[in-house]
């Protein structure tokens, strides 16, 4: 049953009870008033009857006193009491008008009273006309006693009837009062019990539901989203509990998603870190390799430079050597030519003994000359002879050496040419090597530049944004916790549902590059 229906039921029940109790009380009070009026009427009739009896007695007493004493005040009293008695009779007739029995009796009583008053009047007229004795005689011999008895009897009869009626009415009045009292008490007790019990039960039910919701909200606030509430009712609280359970489940799902995203982001972050570290390692390795290659290149360049310098020096030296060799070859050629000439001359001289003789003569002459000179230079000649021989020998040896040198020079020249060709080839190879190295260096530089770009891109890879997203997710988690807290504090589950619906967590795709 819904809360509104429960409240309506309580209100309707309470109003019904109040209406019934009120109507019954009103009826009872009306009956009580009616009974009271009847009792009062009966009491008034009895009182009037007593008054009538007293008036009659007073009228008779005044009349007798006047007749006995002859004093006017008694007569005046008699005169005054007659209308009062008649008025009393009329009052009684009026009061008993609703009761036919009593009306008949009242009429009879009225007639008796009138007869009695008429009789008194007759006696009084007799007193005035014939004197006291006649009045005394009439009184003495009259029917005053029978009148008295008849009046007494009529009044007593009416009185008894009224008293019986009074007793009955009084009993009815008391019963009505008691019934009214009981009705009011029972109605009040019923209303009190109804309102108290139903209010307690409904209030207990409401409070129980609210306490459950508060406890659940408190536990949800502290992360226990799997708490399920069952109010065991079919009212708005059950709907609220269902909504609360749904909120808890959604929060659990959202938290699970956030946790999963957190884990995924942590894994992604770890992967990125690993990739970054591996990239850093690769970068360092590349840098090391590059440094090594650069060192090697520099060393190669240096070696090549040295080699080039050496080659240049070597080529210079070779050129110098070649030039020197050329010069020496030329000199040797010259010497050899001259020696060839000498040999030819010698051969010519040996072939031509004359010529040889002449030559010998010439030589002899020369020798004579030389001898002369030798004589002069005898001392030195003897010394220089060996020197000449040595010189000659030396010249021969020089000639032989020159021949050998020539051969060697030729060989050396050929080797030098070969070496030059080799060196040229080596130079070309070295140039090619240098060009290759330059190309490799350029490639390495371009690779290095690309690696630098990659590193720059890696450095530019904004991990802080990932961290910011991660922190944003954490903030979303905190927001969800705060939402749970706000649920606990405000109990405005509808707003929470709206908030949760509004705060749909979209997992970030960290697999995409930043």
């Amino acid at each position, binding site marked *: 049953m819904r809360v509104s229906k429960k409240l309506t039921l309580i209100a309707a029940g309470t109003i019904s009870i109040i209406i*019934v*109790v009120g109507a*019954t009380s009103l*009826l*009872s009070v009306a*009956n009580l008033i009616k009974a009271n009026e009847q009792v009062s009427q009966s009491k008034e009739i009895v009182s009037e009857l007593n008054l009538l009896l007293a008036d009659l007695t007073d009228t008779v007493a005044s009349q007798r006193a006047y007749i006995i004493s002859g004093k006017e005040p008694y007569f005046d009293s008699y005169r005054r009491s007659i209308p009062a008695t008649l008025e009393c009779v009329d009052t009684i007739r009026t009061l008993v008008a609703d009761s036919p029995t009593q009306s008949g009796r009242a009429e009879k009583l009225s007639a008796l009273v009138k007869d009695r008053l008429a009789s008194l009047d007759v006696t009084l007229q007799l007193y005035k006309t014939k004197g006291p004795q006649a009045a005394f005689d009439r009184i003495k011999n009259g029917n005053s006693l029978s009148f008295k008895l008849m009046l007494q009897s009529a009044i007593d009869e009416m009185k008894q009837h009224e008293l019986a009626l009074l007793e009955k009415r009084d009993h009815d009045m008391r*019963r*009505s009062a*008691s*019934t009214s009292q*009981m*009705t009011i*008490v*029972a*109605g009040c*007790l*019923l209303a009190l*019990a*109804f309102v108290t*019990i139903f209010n307690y*039960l409904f209030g*207990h*039910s409401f409070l*129980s539901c609210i306490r*459950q919701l508060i*406890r*659940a909200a*408190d*536990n*949800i*606030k*502290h992360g*226990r989203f*799997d*708490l*399920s*509430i*069952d*109010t*065991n009712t079919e009212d708005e609280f059950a709907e609220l*509990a269902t909504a609360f359970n749904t909120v808890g489940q959604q929060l659990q799902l959202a938290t699970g998603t956030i946790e999963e995203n957190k884990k995924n982001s942590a894994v992604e972050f770890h992967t990125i870190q690993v990739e970054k570290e591996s990239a850093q390692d690769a970068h360092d390795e590349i840098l090391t390799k590059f440094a090594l290659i650069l060192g090697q290149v520099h060393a190669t360049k240096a070696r090549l430079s040295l080699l080039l310098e050496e080659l240049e020096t070597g080529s210079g030296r070779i050129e110098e050597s070649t030039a020197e060799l050329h010069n020496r070859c030329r000199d040797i050629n010259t010497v050899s030519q001259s020696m060839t000439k000498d040999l030819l001359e010698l051969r010519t001289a040996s072939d031509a003994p004359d010529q040889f003789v002449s030559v010998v003569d010439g030589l002899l002459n020369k020798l004579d000359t030389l001898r002369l000179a030798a004589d002069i230079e005898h001392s030195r000649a003897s010394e220089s002879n060996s020197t000449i021989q040595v010189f000659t020998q030396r010249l021969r040896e020089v000639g032989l050496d020159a021949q050998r040198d020539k051969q060697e020079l030729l060989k050396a020249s050929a080797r030098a040419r070969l070496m030059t060709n080799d060196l040229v080839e080596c130079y070309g190879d070295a140039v090619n090597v240098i060009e290759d190295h330059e190309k490799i260096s350029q490639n390495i530089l371009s690779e290095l530049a690309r690696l630098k770009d990659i590193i720059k891109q890696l450095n530019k890879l904004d991990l802080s944004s990932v961290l910011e997203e991660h922190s944003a997710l954490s903030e979303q988690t905190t927001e969800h916790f705060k939402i749970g807290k706000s649920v*606990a504090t405000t109990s405005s589950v509808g707003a929470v549902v709206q908030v949760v619906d509004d705060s749909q967590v979209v997992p970030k795709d960290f697999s995409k590059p930043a």
Partner: protein
Amino acid sequence: MEFDFRLLAPLVTAVGITVSIILWRLNQKYKALSYNILWHAPVLNVKGLARQELDIRYAGESLTDAYLSVVEIYNSGHLAISASDFQTNLSIEFNPGAVILSTSIIETVPGDLEERCKSKSEYSSAFINSVKDGRAILNPVFMNERDSITVQMLVKNVKAKPIVGGHLLGVKEITPWRSSRLLPTILTQVGAFVMAFAMLGVQPNDLITFAFENVLPWSLLFLLGCVLFNAGLFWPKRRRTGFVG
């Protein structure tokens, strides 16, 4: 029926003494720790052929005969129980041979009760000290009046309901919670008596003569008895939590 006012003095005295005794009783401050088994039922409650075919596993363990037990331990007294009052740790014990597969704290009142637990635990909650041999041992924690811990356990080879044990300073015994049906019983009895009294109070002549004004108070009294009787019959049973199994 006239009320004799001479009875008023002893009546008022008796009422005063009764109220004083009740207030004194209610004002007594004592320590008490109780537990309430909110749920104790088999996990798998399927019968017939489906039971033979159905198999549920938890961490590799078959849950065919496993029970799910939810026990709430709460401070039912008027005084707070401090952690130093625990002379021994609280334990939730099953029958010998029972195997507790899982223990977790599913609810606390207040929700941040766990923050009061200073002990460190290797389990999912700081309350859980150890779990072994069909016995879950809980760490001591400061508990104010009406604070509670709800423990959920998945147990195998269960033969009886769990019992909470432990020794606390000022607490004679950790008692299981029992719902008091005194008030509903009184209401039912009083309602029946009032109905009978109302029925006997009606004069037959009033019914014959249709004197409804005389019958009405007895009808109201009968209705009062009906309200009390039905209130006693349908008085809600006390539930300590919103746990749903």
